[in-house]
């Protein structure tokens, strides 16, 4: 037993022992944070201004960034542990939770509040205009189109990604190729929006009739003797085609998640159903779907939130032209092309409000848990 030994034969007095005395402890408590701070500051300055070769900077950056944060927690924690127990109990939770709360407040909460406030003022933020910006937003024809488009994104994007994901999960599970399928169909999710826009340009590209087609769709049409179609300039087909890009990326996500949930469905239950004479379809609808329903909802709400905030795909493919604009692109336009801070803010808040019900529904699914 360690403790007994320590009492019986006092070990030689090393630095550690000296520091263990009361005075030593106070010194350490001050010294350690100061030194930690100095190291962090030195690292910060180095990264900011150094002319060292890029790779050195990068390595230092990575080590400093991660090590720095870890060190801060260690230091904060050890400091707190020096405190008397009651104080410890009060402060320690905030050591754990505090940084997250502080960062979230700074990066999301306060800007959201500031934006809500700005939405009540005019373009330069000087005159109070109340709800005028919101009235404008809902009566402006561009905005009406944007709302229509976001609804299309929400409905088509979510339903098809989740639905196809579900169907494909069920299908793929029975195939020998399931691992290959899951990998390859999930892959598009790893591609950036910039990359995806380049990829899909080569699918939707339009060249005038009689010219060789560079886009896959028009080439296929051409093989059947049909004339080329300008896919991205005609509404609302163009929005639907943009949604296809989202579905391409998200179905794999849905498929993989739902597929894993499917594995958790007990076989005996399905067998019992079959013995009772139920068809595959009935088993699917009445047994499988209800038992993985929470997963389906999680996937659907995650995709739904994505569709409401959609910005990159629209900007990269059509720039928001040809009536493909959505709320997020309009918000950017108001704020940075028209320099109207008030209207831009109002649109941002409208977006925020639109997303809230989806999150709330998602949360309800998890209410049962230990909140």
């Amino acid at each position: 037993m360690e403790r007994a030994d320590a009492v019986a034969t006092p070990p030689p007095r090393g630095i550690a022992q000296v520091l263990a005395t009361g005075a030593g402890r106070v010194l350490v408590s001050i010294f350690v944070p100061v030194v930690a701070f100095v190291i962090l500051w030195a690292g910060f300055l180095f990264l900011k201004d150094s002319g060292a070769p890029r790779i050195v900077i990068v390595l230092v950056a990575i080590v400093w960034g991660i090590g720095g944060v870890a060190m801060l927690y260690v230091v904060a924690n050890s400091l707190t542990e020096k405190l008397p127990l009651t104080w410890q109990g009060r402060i320690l939770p905030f050591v754990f939770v505090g940084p997250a709360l502080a960062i979230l407040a700074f990066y999301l909460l306060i800007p959201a509040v500031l934006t809500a406030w700005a939405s009540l003022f005019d373009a330069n933020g000087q005159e109070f205009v109340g709800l005028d910006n919101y009235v404008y937003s809902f009566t402006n024809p561009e905005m009406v189109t944007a709302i229509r488009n976001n609804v299309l994104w929400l409905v088509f994007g979510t339903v098809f990604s989740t639905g196809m994901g579900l169907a494909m999960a069920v299908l793929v599970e029975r195939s020998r190729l399931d691992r290959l399928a899951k990998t390859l169909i999930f892959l598009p999710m790893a591609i950036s929006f910039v990359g995806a826009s380049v990829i899909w340009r080569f699918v939707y590209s339009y060249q005038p009739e009689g010219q060789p087609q560079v886009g896959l769709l028009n080439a296929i049409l051409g093989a059947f003797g049909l004339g080329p179609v300008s896919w991205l300039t005609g509404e609302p087909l163009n929005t639907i085609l943009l949604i296809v890009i989202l579905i391409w990326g998200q179905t794999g996500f849905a498929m993989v998640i739902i597929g894993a949930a499917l594995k958790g469905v007990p076989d005996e239950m399905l067998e019992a159903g079959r013995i009772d004479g139920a068809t595959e379809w009935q088993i699917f609808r009445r047994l499988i779907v209800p038992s993985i329903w929470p997963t389906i909802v999680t996937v659907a709400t995650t995709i739904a939130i994505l569709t409401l905030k959609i910005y990159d795909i629209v900007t990269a493919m059509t720039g928001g032209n040809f009536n493909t604009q959505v709320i997020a692109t309009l918000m950017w336009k108001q704020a940075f092309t028209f320099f109207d801070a008030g209207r831009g803010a109002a649109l941002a808040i409208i977006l925020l409000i639109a997303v809230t019900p989806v999150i709330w529904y998602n949360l309800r699914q998890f209410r049962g848990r230990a909140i």
Partner: protein
Amino acid sequence: MRTIKWSRVAINLTVIALIVVWTVPTIGLFITSFRGKQAISNSGWWTVFTNPQGAFTLDNYEKVLFGGDGLATAFLNTLAVTVPAVVIPILIAAFAAYGFAWMQFPGRRVLFITVVALLVVPLQIALIPVLKAYLAIDLNGTFLAVWLAHAGFGLALATYLLYNYISQLPKDIIESAALDGASHFTTFRRLILPLSMPALASFAIFQFLWVWNDLLVATTFLGTDQDVAVMTSRLVSMTGSRGQDWQLLTAGAFVSMIVPVMVFLALQRYFVKGLLAGSVKG
């Protein structure tokens, strides 16, 4: 027996068809990245199968990787931005999730709901206020600025996901650790972190993909200076002022895709396990 065999064949065929449909667009990009500018504007990429003469070239990749404004520096920058921007939020979120799940303090419930509620805030809202604040403390243009920004934008989801997982860990293990005299910090370090690996890895992948492919946050807080710009920024500037240099863009897009794809392939197991842990029993 016959019907089962047929339906098995049908299923496999359908799956193959799906795989083909899903990967064709990306294959198109891959092939195009080896074609010259003229070839790209004059014929579809599928023609390389019927007409394979001469159009194959490595020029695009050469220019994109090693050319004057090549992607080599940008690659390092993306790495410098991504790795900490993944680890830091996870660390902070893990601490917070543990705190919300296993520690008692006043306002715990309200604070947690606020954190989750912040999932609704679109990040465009935060750009100008945060930029102004950064300038006031001369933080802009540094890696730290971008790490913290990515942490800020990812913390809500991270905390939510990790909370779901950590709150489900077996209560007895944690309680017996407390009984043995372990402090919260030790429990966290020795018990929670290792046990939560699937959830941590899963969120790490999510965050990695998101940060690596991000354009907006890096451009706003780090800038487009050639020596600090990340790959997505460089890609966008790379289309050149001469209209659209598609041949460069295809090679560049492919180069920037390789790392996330490889990361994903290596870690996809964890991804699913971690995400699911909150919603499926056992």
